[in-house]
Every structure is written in structure tokens, then in C-alpha cells.
């Protein structure tokens, strides 16, 4: 095109009078920018130093203490520890640490939507769904009562001897047991050990088919 003959000779012509904006005749414009600005551009003016004083120090200490304290509260949900590489025999007899799905603190359930309440034994129930209906008919009512009594006695015993963590988990489960057939699970494999202690890795990956109430996408 005719107008763009000279490469680098003089500036381009604008549609408006550049003098109005303030660029005088023959003045050099800054070079065009061909790359993004540097990540840490050099500062023309150094930043003002931070405020000092007792108040500032106290708030600093408060902030750091708050951070540390919150890490230890039950509200801090730690991600589940990754499973070890190989399934060890001793895993069966070790305590599985904080019960994976229980909440360590007690919210006021009356103020929360019902769907948020976690049923701890839900997973075990999944495996036992096939067995439970038959067993329900088999066990007559009074036998269930005696079993329940034995269970609570057993639990009371364990309260004193087991570690605190475990005890908290037990109580948590004890509270959520109303209306659930928990005794079925103790009886599942007919051992002397409470099944909830063991984590033999079967529930790894079975988490996704939890909660039958949800629509399946």
C-alpha cells in the first residue's frame, strides 16, 4: 500500500492530531514492547518499612498461635494417610487410627441438615446387606436384647483398657447406633475381636458406591 512505504522512516500517521495529546513534533516515542513485562521488575521506589511496636508484635504472635492451634483442633480434617505398599499381616490386628468417617467433635445435629450425618458403619453394612435380612428373621427379639446387653458390657470393659482415641471412636459409634443393627456385624465372622478395629483394606475403593440414596450419573 502506498502509505506504508518507509520502513522505520518517521512515525506512523494517526487519525487524530497527536499534539493535542501532548506528543510534540519530532519527539521520540518509547520503543514498542515485544514481550511480557519481567516477573520481578526493579523497584523505582523502595517499599516503606513495616510498622513496628508492641501492638504489631502481639498480633503477630496471636496470628502464629492461631495457626498452630487450628491445626490441632478436630475441625482440621487431615487427608487420609496413604495406604502402605504391601498388605501386612499385622494390619489386621492394629488399630486403624482415627475412624475414617467419623467426626471427632459433636456438632448440634438439630441445627444441621439430616443428610450430613455420617453413619459410621455404613460401609460394613454394604458387605453385610446380603446376610442381614436372613439373620434378622433368625434372631428372635429376646436374643437380640441379650446380645445388646453383652455388647454394652463389652464396650464398657474396653472403655477402661483401650487407648483414648479408640475410646472416642467407640463412643462416637455408640451414639450413632440408635436404630441400627450393629450386633450383626460383631457376629459376622464370629471372632472375639470387634470388627471395627480392623482395616483389612477392603474398603479401599469401595467408597464410591456408598449412599444408595444418591442418583447415579
Amino acid at each position, binding site marked *: 500500500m502506498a502509505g506504508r512505504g518507509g520502513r522505520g522512516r518517521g512515525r506512523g500517521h494517526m487519525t487524530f*492530531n497527536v499534539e*493535542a495529546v501532548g506528543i510534540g513534533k519530532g519527539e521520540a516515542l518509547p520503543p514498542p514492547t515485544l514481550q511480557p513485562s519481567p516477573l520481578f521488575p526493579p523497584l523505582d521506589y523502595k517499599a516503606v518499612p513495616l510498622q513496628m511496636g508492641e501492638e504489631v508484635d502481639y498480633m503477630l504472635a496471636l496470628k502464629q498461635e492461631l*495457626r498452630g492451634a487450628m491445626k490441632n483442633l478436630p475441625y*482440621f*480434617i487431615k487427608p487420609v494417610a496413604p495406604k502402605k505398599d504391601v498388605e501386612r499381616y499385622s494390619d489386621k490386628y492394629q488399630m486403624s487410627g482415627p475412624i475414617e468417617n467419623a467426626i471427632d467433635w459433636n*456438632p448440634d445435629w438439630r441445627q444441621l441438615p439430616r443428610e*450430613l450425618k455420617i453413619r459410621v458403619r455404613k460401609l460394613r453394612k454394604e458387605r453385610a446387606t446380603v446376610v442381614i435380612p436372613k439373620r434378622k428373621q433368625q434372631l428372635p427379639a429376646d436374643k437380640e436384647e441379650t446380645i445388646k446387653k453383652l455388647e454394652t458390657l463389652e464396650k464398657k470393659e474396653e472403655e477402661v483398657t483401650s487407648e483414648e482415641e479408640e475410646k472416642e471412636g467407640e463412643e462416637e459409634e455408640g451414639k450413632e447406633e440408635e436404630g441400627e443393627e450393629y450386633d450383626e456385624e460383631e457376629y459376622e465372622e464370629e471372632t472375639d475381636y470387634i470388627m471395627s478395629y480392623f482395616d483389612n483394606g477392603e474398603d479401599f475403593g469401595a467408597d464410591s458406591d456408598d449412599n444408595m440414596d444418591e442418583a447415579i450419573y
Partner: protein
Amino acid sequence: MTQAEIKLCSLLLQEHFGEIVDKIGTHLIQAGSQPLRMITHDTGMSPDQVKKALCVLIQHNLVTYQLQKRGFVEYEAQCDRVLRILRYPRYIYTAKTLYSDTGELIVEELLLNGKMAMSAVVQKVADRLTETMEDGKTMDYSEVSNTFVRLADTHFIQRCPLVPEASGPSDAPPPPAPTLVVNEMEMYMVPKLNLVGKGKRRHSCDDDGNDEPKTKKQKQDTDSKEPQPDDGIYWHVNIDRFHQHFRDQAIVSAVANRMDQTSSEIVRTMLRMSEVTTSSSAPSTQPLSSNEIFRSLPTGYNISKQVLDQYLTLLADDPLEFVGKHGESGGGMFVINLYKALTSLATATLESVVQERFGSRCARIFRLLLQKKHLEQKQVEDFAMIPAKEAKDMLYKMLSENIVSLQEIPKTPDHAPSRTFYLYTVKTLAFARMLLHRCYKSVANLIERRQYETKENKRLLEKSQRVEAILASMQATGAEEAQLQEIEEMITAPERQQLESLKRNVNKIDASENQVDETIFILESYIDSTVKRI
């Protein structure tokens, strides 16, 4: 929600509640109102984890839920409430200045736990205070209760919305989620509790000889007793009241800087008198007569009525217009122009930013534009008394940063550029918003840097913690100087230096975060009050 805000919320949630809560909270902030199924589906986490995280977020007032007409519950995150986590230390410190250690601990417990019942708070705070007291002394529950009542009376803490009383037939199935009701009248009423007792130490000898850890004992206590009389009544911190207090503090200190101590005291008295009569978003307080102010001055101040009148006239005539004269009755009616005061504070912040980033000459041009509103290029040079070339350069620099903007005024209908006026102007609201966005970004960067520094030196930190633990246990069992020396030498001198510099850097970054938060507060208050006015 801007990207910067979302990023900052995510970092805050991660630091204080862990990654799971962070993921779910951030997702809710980005996606808006969602039911449980969708959250589980979109985040790809297990339903139990989502439920746990939602319980934590609701407990801390960061997420609210609502029962929809179709029968399912939707959850919504409150982004600005999450950003307040940055301000927690300031709230606690303010409570300390106003109500001493007891107040400080009450507010701290409420902030750490989100919502709590009064009896639980009083018990915990009394126990904590007893820990710090000398042997043999304990903190009485009544003292803690009194401070609690005072905090409630001054509206610094308030009741949470309640579950409504079951008015319908009791055999109807309960709804999937309660619809919480806010009872305006009772928001600050403290229930009548008869809390008798004293704080307990962790291993106090006047327990019944039990060596059990305190938590276990408490659990048995709460299990065995009947539910407390204030069952179901929960309290949380009233953040707006604290903000009101910060705003008042800022105004008073501004007056003190501009004039003198006495005038700031007068302004403080006026603000205190208007605390209950003025809502926090009102543009100005109710008119107060000079006689009333004179009566309400703190008893230490012996200024005569005429001196007070002179001060008030001086304040009302000041170009900053913090105080305005409203009428003549009662010796002169005066108001505090809250909106104007906030605007001045925000503008001062903006000016200071321009000065520190671009130099004092740019700041001069900026102030000139604020004063004269619209100026042409030529006029700027003349009024600011800066050579043309430099003025042009500065204006363009500021224009490129969007601090000033161009307003076109055409002389002819065809908008020909040679026949158009180009006026420079400062849009304070837009600039304030931009600066606020930058502040959020800065805090996010600071947090990231701090986490990076800590992660880099993780090994060293763990080692020093182990050494400290060993030292503590050895000192407890009574070891000799030589052995302690040996253990201390496990950390070599360069490592010690590294630890020192790490500590210094982390402290600096934390202090910076606190300071940026102060700026965020001023800007946010200004933007909120401007938006509400429009």
C-alpha cells in the same frame, strides 16, 4: 468473585482447615449454591469427606444452607466471611484491649470453634485462665460470665439463629433441614444460667485423686449431667460490630493526627454516644447537641463549655468535613459524617500508594486531580508547576496503570479528535476496587511465599523440634549441664543461622499480611458504604 479472592480463600481454608475443606469450600465459592449430590459429583471426593467438610464449614459460619421448595438442601459459601479469617488476630487483640484477658480468651474460643454455648465457653475459658495463674489460685466462673454478659451487651457477640420451636404436630416427619430463625429481639439476651464453679487445672491436686486426662473427665461429666439449661443456644462473634469499632478507631486516630488529642477525644465521645442509635451503614450519625456532648465527656477531661464549643466549631469548619453542623438548638447540633470520613481515609490510602509507587510529583498531580476533578493536559502542567515533559510522562505512566482516566468531551458532533477536549480525571471507586484486588493478590502471594519458605526448610525445622523435645524431656528428668550442651550442639552453627533467618522471614511475612489486611479493611469499608449509598 474475582480470581484473586478465590485464590486467597482457598489458601486461607487450606491453612486453617486442611486440604479437604479447602477443596470443597473453594468449589462452593466458585459454583454458587449447590446441593450435596452435585458437590460430591463435581469435586470427585467421597461423600463422607464432603459431609465432614460441610459440617466444619457450617459450624464456622462459612457456609449456609437452605431448604429448597422441592425438598432438597442447597449449600452456599460466603466468600467475604472466609476472607475475614485473615482478621481474626485483630478481633482478638481488640477484645483484649477492651475487656482484658478474659474477653480475649472468650473471643478466641468463639473464633476457633465457630459457634459455642455459653456454658461451654465459660468453662473452657476459666480452665485456660486457671492454667496461667499461680498455683493454688483458680478463676471463678462468675467472673468469666460477667465478661461474657458485657460482651453480649455491647453486641460484640451475638446469638446464632435458632431452630424454631416445634409448633406443628409432633408425628409429622421432621424436615430434612431445619429452617433457622433469627430472633431480632433476643439476639443479645444472655440466658439465665447459674454457673457455679471454678476453673480446673490440668493436673490439679484438688481433683478427686484422678490422674485421668482432663478431656476424659470432662466427657464423663457432660455425659452424666442433664443437658445444660442453655441447650440449643449458641453464640458467635458479631463481626460487623468489630468492624464498626475499627472504623471508629480509624476516624479518631485520623482526627488526632490532623488536630490534637482533645479534639480526638471529643470525636470519640460523639461516636460512643451514637453507637447504639446509628446503624453501621448510615452515612452520618444522629445529630448530637453540644450540651449532650459536654455531659458525656469522660470525667478526666476538664474542659469548659466554651472550649468545647470552640473545638466543635473548629472541627465543623475543617475542610475534611468529619464533623458537620446540623443546626443551632441545644447549643449547636453536630453530626459525624461517617461516609465522608471513610472517603477521606480511603483517599488518603490511595494517595499514599501513588506516592510510594510513583514518587511525590506523581502524588502531587494525583492530589491536584482529586481536588479539581477534571483537568486538561496543559492545565495539569500549569497547576502542578511541573515541566511539561515530566508531567506528560507521569500522566501517561499513571494512565497505563489505570490510576487516572481520560474523559473525552467532543466540541463537534463528529467527535473529531483534533476538536475534542481530553480531560484527565481520577475515579476513586474504580481505583479503590483495583487496589483492593491487588491487596488480595498480595496477601495470596505472601501466604504462598511463607508456605514455600517453610517447606524448603522442613527437614531443618523437624530436626530442631526433635532436639527441643529431647532437651525438654532431659531437663524434666534432671540432666547435667554437659549433657544439655551436647544435645544443643546437635544443631550446628550454620543450621542455627538458617533457622534464625527462616524465623525472621516468616515473621516479616506474617506482619506484612496483618498490615495489608488493615488496608483491605479501609478499602472494603469505603467501597461497601459507597455501593450502599447508590
